[in-house]
């Protein structure tokens, strides 16, 4: 990596800009490529090994190209794991939750953003405070309550709470509503539109960017949820993909059919990657809103 000219003299003469042109650009791209490899190698290996024979998976150092392509790893994996049912269940939970999240969060956010009522700010502070409550504190009473009303082994515990607003999504959405100019609302009011009409026909269309972000966060949340399905769903006909994959694999010391495990993982990961590539911008936006704004 030695440069032809002394880096020091370049620094002194021209500062960082010149040096970067000659050398640090190369270094920069090398670094970026290395990091990409670090991030992507596990996923790439997942895909490749899902076609390998079992004994090739155990070879050290690791091999990247299947010696023989063995698509039957997928069919073998599916023998013990009803992908169809788990996929359908996951779709169902995800979509209904998504509808619940979007419906309730836009409604509540609009209430917080556009109306004045007593204790509004105090209530909003409570909303923010609930973000700090660890899930572990909620786990047991909520579990006991669901069990008391016979909701164990149903989708309700995974779906119903989403219809009562998620603090974080409400927060995102409210910020967005606050940014919509008041003039638009006033114009609608002058036209004699009711509050409900203003909400559904003016605000909601305007809030599409925020709604897409919420939809993506909600989708990720339901699709990836593990603990919820783990404790609430026992009938295999109700299992979601996350649980199906977990049951199929197992703890170290017992597992080891890595090629089939990777085939199963590939099946679970693919739909998420497709959605990610379709909505890349919104995914990144979602991450940004989560960590940047305030």
């Amino acid at each position, binding site marked *: 990596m030695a440069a032809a000219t002394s880096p020091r003299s370049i620094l002194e003469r021209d500062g960082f800009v010149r040096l970067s042109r000659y050398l640090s650009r190369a270094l920069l791209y090398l670094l970026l490529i290395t990091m990409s490899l670090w991030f992507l190698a596990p996923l790439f290996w997942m895909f490749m090994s899902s076609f390998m024979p079992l004994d090739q998976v155990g070879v050290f150092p690791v091999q990247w190209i299947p010696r023989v392509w063995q698509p039957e790893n997928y069919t073998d994996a599916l023998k013990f794991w009803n992908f169809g049912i788990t996929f359908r269940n996951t*779709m*169902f939970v995800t979509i209904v939750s998504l509808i619940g999240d979007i419906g309730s969060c836009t409604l509540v956010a609009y209430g917080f953003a556009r109306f004045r009522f007593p204790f509004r700010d105090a209530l909003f502070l409570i909303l923010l405070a609930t973000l700090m409550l660890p899930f572990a504190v909620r786990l047991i009473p909520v579990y006991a309550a669901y069990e*008391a009303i016979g909701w164990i082994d149903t989708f309700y515990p995974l779906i119903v709470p989403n219809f009562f607003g998620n603090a974080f999504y409400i927060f995102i959405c409210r910020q967005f509503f606050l940014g919509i100019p008041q003039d638009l609302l006033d114009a609608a009011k002058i036209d004699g539109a009711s509050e409900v009409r203003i909400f559904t026909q003016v605000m909601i269309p305007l809030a599409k960017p925020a709604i897409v972000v919420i939809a993506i966060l909600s989708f990720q949340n339901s699709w990836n949820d593990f603990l919820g399905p783990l404790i609430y769903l026992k009938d295999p006909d109700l299992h979601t993909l996350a649980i199906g994959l977990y049951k199929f694999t197992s703890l170290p*010391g*017992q597992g080891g059919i890595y090629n089939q495990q990777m085939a199963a993982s590939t099946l679970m990961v693919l739909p998420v990657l497709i959605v990610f590539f379709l909505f890349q911008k919104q995914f990144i936006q979602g991450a940004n809103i989560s960590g940047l704004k305030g």
Partner: protein
Amino acid sequence: MFRKSTLLLLVAVMLLAMLSLSAVSAQNPDCEGDVTLTYWHHWGGNRIPLMEEQIADFENNNPGICVDNIFLPWDNRLQNLLAAIAAGNPPDVTMFGRQDLPFFAATESIIPLDDYMAADGIDPAIFHSSEFAGTQFNGKTWLLPLPGGGAFAIAWYNSDHFAEAGIESFPETWEEMLEAAEALTIGDGSFLERVGFNANAVTGFPFLAWLNANGQTWISDDLRAITINNEAGVETLEFMQAMTELNYGIEELNAFWEMSGEFDQGPLIQGLVSIESNGSWTLFQLEDHAETLNYDVAPIPYGPSGRADRRGGAHGGWGYMIPKNAAHPDEAWQLVKWLTTETEGKGACWFIQQQQRPSPLVECNGYEKDGGVHPRAESILGVAALDYLVPVAPVQPEANQILGRMVDDVLFGDSSIVDALASAEAEIQALLDSFWEEYG
């Protein structure tokens, strides 16, 4: 991006999802009846079709009763069951581990079966007495046994590996076992290529299995006192320690085991180990590989304090029971009878014989599958005869964790054998005391 077509697509997908959801049911569509029993079991893998056949035959023989046949995975089964019982919608019949009985019986979360048995003239003597003993708690019968609780710790070994290493016959004692394992293990001293035998990978609870093979039970017959801190306990841990050391220590052995596979791809089948200790069900899996795998069966070796005729503890095993609040207890009893006592048709005998395992029923131990007797089935029956009954602690799941930690303390060299035994014994005894204080 959020076009109408997208929305329509979403709605269509959701409708599809809902539609397909409503179609999901494990019920036999041909069955017509007034009563539908919910039935949970854990017979996975290649036993799923067997169970379906068995249930279909039950439905044919019991008109009016249909069965919703649900295969549940093994982990979290007790939590699932408890939650369902507490919520008042339990299954009508469920498969149940015998070691988990005390808590459920003490809280009366399940129904005693003695009245049903008396009414239908089911004589306990139709079961092997050691099998039936595991169904008792506080003087009542809470479940009927199937499959058997014995033949859990059988040694399955690769005959070719034995021939290569020049070992003539399967070791009888722990000392011989250590010698054989040392000869069978292959590696360079720090990286294992093949493991002769892993004493920590034993079905159930490794320490207790070896303690049993050393002639000891660990808990008093009234289930109130435990003893492991004695000569036999020390010998047991010494054996496990020595076996681990000759496999280059616990870390390398565990690392090796991460790659070893399971089910019908287990380490014995892959040639990664020479001897494996596993239950009678292994026959079913190994037979699929009989063409490439030259294997045989033997009883596990016994320890210095043990006896040649007492090798394995019959402490595990399963049964079928009826939870409290079951919707149809009378019909449920018919199913329990079919699953555990029926010698005709595709009942209890048939189901176990298809798998060529020992049956808890005295009458069904011919080991015939479709008419033929498997050559190794006789050996398994011989091994099962060396089992003796071992009581199970009411706090078994947590006790197993403590015992597991105790073994690790020793194998990782963090504690002396005597200290480890003493503290585990005290800890489990305290658990036991608080259990009896609460439920006694």
